[in-house]
Each structure stands twice: as structure tokens, then as C-alpha cells.
């Protein structure tokens, strides 16, 4: 009799513990989804808000004077594709001058050819060896004619650098052009995979976030002004922000050097809205309702599921202006 009573009590207790057992599966997974979302937010927010940081020593000013620091497609060695690049709503590239490697300076000798050797001008805090540049650094070279290109340092000796072009261009840079270390961050949703990936402009292409089910970038800026676009000091363009659609970002007018043209409307971008949606990695914790689960799973019932987590945030990169 005592044993029977014990079994009954035990059964009741285990039945009561079932919801707790379900929670022990779903709560850690929910925490995991939130943590992945926070990580993606931090990475995107940090790189977007600092995009366009320009030089502070040589020809000081933001990058937007010469090139678009935000583009909705890939730049770098693996950019490939057509010369006039097609915008993607689930991809973005940011460019900003880096503070971490070599120092900004100007060229003493011209850059010609695909693998040029160039000599650097020395400055008060920029001397041998190579102003702090090292092999594998990514650098940006630009001049007053609004020509620009990304290079990778393949060798650094004395005040000389051997460079390799990141794009299929033949742009020639004369002495006096600015060279600066640059950070390139390309974020994109990997086609056919539920991954947010990061590409560094050369060979580094790694997953950043698993179980991404939605990634979308929208661009905002002042309305297009009449007159020349490419030669406008774009930071002076002001006015209420309107959405700049993907069609506007691919219909010209085309600016920039041969081999690396960009749509002039990219210079109007002042803010980016990011939509991120992440799902549970455990398919058994995903339910059937498509409003909660972009990729439904077999879970049924009310409890024990982990709905997709989504966040939308807008970033106004500070280096794109407008400034007071």
C-alpha cells in the first residue's frame, strides 16, 4: 500500500515537473537566440555608426568627400560581378579609415600597374619602417580628383610598400595622393544558408551568426537635388530624410573612377535601417504559425516553443553628416 501511494505521489510530482522540463529546454534556447541577436546588433551598430571615418592628418576630413562609405553590395578582392554593381537589400559594405595600423600619409611616387611599388612621404610621426604599415594591411588610396582604390600591402621595407589592387582597375595615382589604413566590413546573408556572414575585403569570409532568417537594409537621405551629383560636397546636402530605394541606387548618374563606378545617389545616404530576424537553432522548439516562425517546425501546443526574435534599428553614421 505504501509503495502504491509513493508511486502515485511520484507520478503526480513528475507530471508537475513536466512544464519545468519543457522550460529547461526552451529558456536556454531563448537566451541563446537573444544573445545572438545582441551580438549581431553590436557588430552592425558599431561598424555602421563609425562608417566613413576619414583621415585626420593627411588631407583631413570624412571619406564621403571622395567615395560612398556605405554601399549595398560587396567591395574588395572577391567583389566580382559587373562593373556597375547591383544593390542587394541583404548586403552592405562599410569603409572607414582605421586607427589601428599604419599612419596616414601621402605618396612620394606614383601608383601605376596592378602590383605597384610606392614610396611614402615621411611626416613627424610617420617614418621608417613604412609608417607602421605591414604586409597584409588593407589600405585606401585617394586623390583630389576623387579617384580611389583599395590595395593590400604585400611587402613593406623602409619607406616603400608593394601593393596589390583589390579591384580590376587601372587607376593611376600621382605623387601627393593620400594613403591610409582602412577597414572594410561587408555583411551579407549567405544565399541558400541561414547565416549572417562577414567579409573583410580580401580573403577573410566567416560566419557571424547562425539561424538568420531575415536581413534587410534600407537607406535614407535628403531628397535628390538638381545639378551635378558627383562633384557635390555631399555633406552639405541637407533636408528631411526620405527613403532611397534600390532602383535609385542603381540607375546613375555614375561617379567614381573607371572600373569602380558607383551610383551618385549613394552619396546622399545619411541613415540606414536594419531589420534582423533570428530563429531558434533547435527545430523541435519551432512551432507552426508562420507569424511567429519564419521557418516553422514540428512543435505543437502553447508552451515549450521559442518564437523568432526580430529587431529593427536605425543608425545615422556620424561621419556622413550633416554637422552643426
Amino acid at each position: 500500500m505504501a509503495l502504491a501511494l509513493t508511486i502515485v505521489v511520484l507520478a503526480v510530482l513528475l507530471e508537475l515537473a513536466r512544464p519545468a522540463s519543457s522550460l529547461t529546454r526552451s529558456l536556454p534556447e531563448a537566451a541563446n537566440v537573444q544573445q545572438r541577436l545582441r551580438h549581431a546588433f553590436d557588430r552592425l551598430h558599431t561598424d555602421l555608426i563609425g562608417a566613413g571615418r576619414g583621415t585626420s592628418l593627411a588631407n583631413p576630413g570624412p571619406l564621403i568627400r571622395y567615395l560612398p562609405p556605405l554601399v549595398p553590395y560587396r567591395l574588395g578582392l572577391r567583389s566580382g560581378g559587373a562593373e556597375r554593381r547591383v544593390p542587394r537589400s541583404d548586403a552592405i559594405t562599410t569603409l572607414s579609415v582605421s586607427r589601428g595600423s599604419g599612419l596616414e600619409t601621402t605618396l612620394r611616387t606614383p601608383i601605376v600597374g596592378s602590383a605597384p611599388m610606392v614610396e611614402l612621404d615621411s611626416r613627424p610621426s610617420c617614418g621608417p619602417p613604412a609608417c607602421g604599415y605591414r604586409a597584409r594591411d588593407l589600405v585606401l588610396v585617394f586623390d583630389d580628383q576623387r579617384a580611389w582604390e583599395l590595395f593590400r600591402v604585400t611587402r613593406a621595407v623602409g619607406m616603400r610598400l608593394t601593393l596589390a589592387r583589390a579591384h580590376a582597375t587601372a587607376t593611376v595615382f600621382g605623387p601627393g595622393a593620400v594613403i591610409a589604413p582602412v577597414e572594410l566590413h561587408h555583411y551579407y546573408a549567405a544565399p541558400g544558408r541561414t547565416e549572417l556572414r562577414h567579409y573583410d575585403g580580401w580573403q577573410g569570409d566567416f560566419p557571424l551568426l547562425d539561424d538568420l532568417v531575415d536581413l534587410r537594409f534600407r537607406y535614407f537621405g535628403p531628397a535628390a537635388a538638381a545639378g551635378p551629383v558627383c562633384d557635390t560636397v555631399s555633406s552639405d546636402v541637407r533636408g528631411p530624410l526620405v527613403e532611397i530605394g534600390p532602383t535609385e541606387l542603381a540607375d546613375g548618374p555614375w561617379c567614381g573612377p573607371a572600373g569602380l563606378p558607383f551610383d551618385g545617389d549613394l552619396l546622399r545616404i545619411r541613415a540606414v535601417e536594419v531589420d534582423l530576424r533570428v530563429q531558434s537553432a533547435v527545430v523541435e522548439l519551432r512551432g507552426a504559425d508562420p507569424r511567429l516562425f519564419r521557418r516553422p517546425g514540428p512543435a505543437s501546443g502553447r508552451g515549450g516553443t521559442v518564437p523568432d526574435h526580430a529587431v529593427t534599428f536605425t543608425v545615422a553614421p556620424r561621419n556622413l553628416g550633416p554637422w552643426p
Partner: protein
Amino acid sequence: MSRLGGTRGDDRRGSALLVTMLTAVLVSGLAGGLVIVLSTEQAVEANHRRGVTAFYAADGLLAGVTTELMEVADWRPVFSGSRLSSFGSGPLSVRLADGAAVDLPEMTLQLQRETDAAGGPGPGPLWRLFAWGWFADLLGDTSSGRLLYVAAWISDGGADQDPDQTTEATQRIVVRATAFGPFRARRSVEASLGRTANDAHVVTWDLVY
């Protein structure tokens, strides 16, 4: 007597207690695990939120100081320390809500040491405290309590100026704004301002780690 007369193998006294204790341990383990997961998640989330809040507070102060400096026709009194920000009346040492101390004179020295250690040849930037106070006071909103303390330092950017500049000391100014919050929340942003004959403008804006 019959109970006392049973053999040792038939004695089931205490078995219910054993089962009950095992069940209690099982349930307690499940509950404890959930508590740990929830409290960790709560702590991570709160830490993240405090960091984001501190970032925007620092950026807000930077925007205010930048606007103020743009309206100053001559930056030399700013460099010399004879002119401070209009937002600079707070105490130099405060305690945050968690009891942690913020000592701005010590932090100025620490910032200078870090800059000197990272600098190259020639005179480096000289940092000077320019604006400080509770962020709530900057907003004019004390209803939400004084949680974040903010401070801004200015420097002349050091000796390595653009060679085109003629009077270096009045041509460029670097502003670093930092927000301090409870539980070690701390974020810094930095902007470099330049002045030409006609106007002053922001040259760069940057996160500082």
C-alpha cells in the same frame, strides 16, 4: 511485535523518504537551473542595455560640446583652460548609483598617460577637462534620476598636424566624451574638429575602445 519481528530484508521503513528526497532534489535541480539561466540572461541583458545607454549619453555630450566649440571664434582660451564649457559646473568626483567612484582629475591623468604611452616622437596631445556633470542635468531632466555621469576632454591633437595649416594650435581640436554608468558601464566617443578661415567643421567622429 510483528513489526519488530520482521527480517532485515523486509524492512521498507524509510524508502518513501528516500524517494521523496530524490524527487525533491530533481525538482530543485530543475528550478535551480532555470534560475541560473534567467538570472544570467537578465544580467547580460542589463549590461548590454547600460552599455547602449552610456554610448548615447557620451554621444549626446559630444554633440553638445561640438556645437559649443563651433560657436567659439578663438580656440586658444579653450586650449589654455581659461574657457570651460557652459556645462561644467558639476563636482569633479562623484559616486555612482552602485557606489563606484568617478574621479575626473585621476581620469585626466590616466588618459594623458595612455596617450603619451601610445604616442610617437614629438609633443603629444595634451588633454584638458572641458565639460562634466550628470547627464540628467545636461538634459535638464532630473525626474529619471542621476544615473550617468559624463565628461569631455579636449586636446590640440599633438604636433602631427596637417602641414597646410598655418597656426596649428587654433586649427584643430580633439574632443573625447565619456559616459560613466553604474556597474562599470562606460563608453567613449571622440571627434576631431577643424577650423578654416571661414568656418569650423567636424573632421572625424570615432568610437573609442
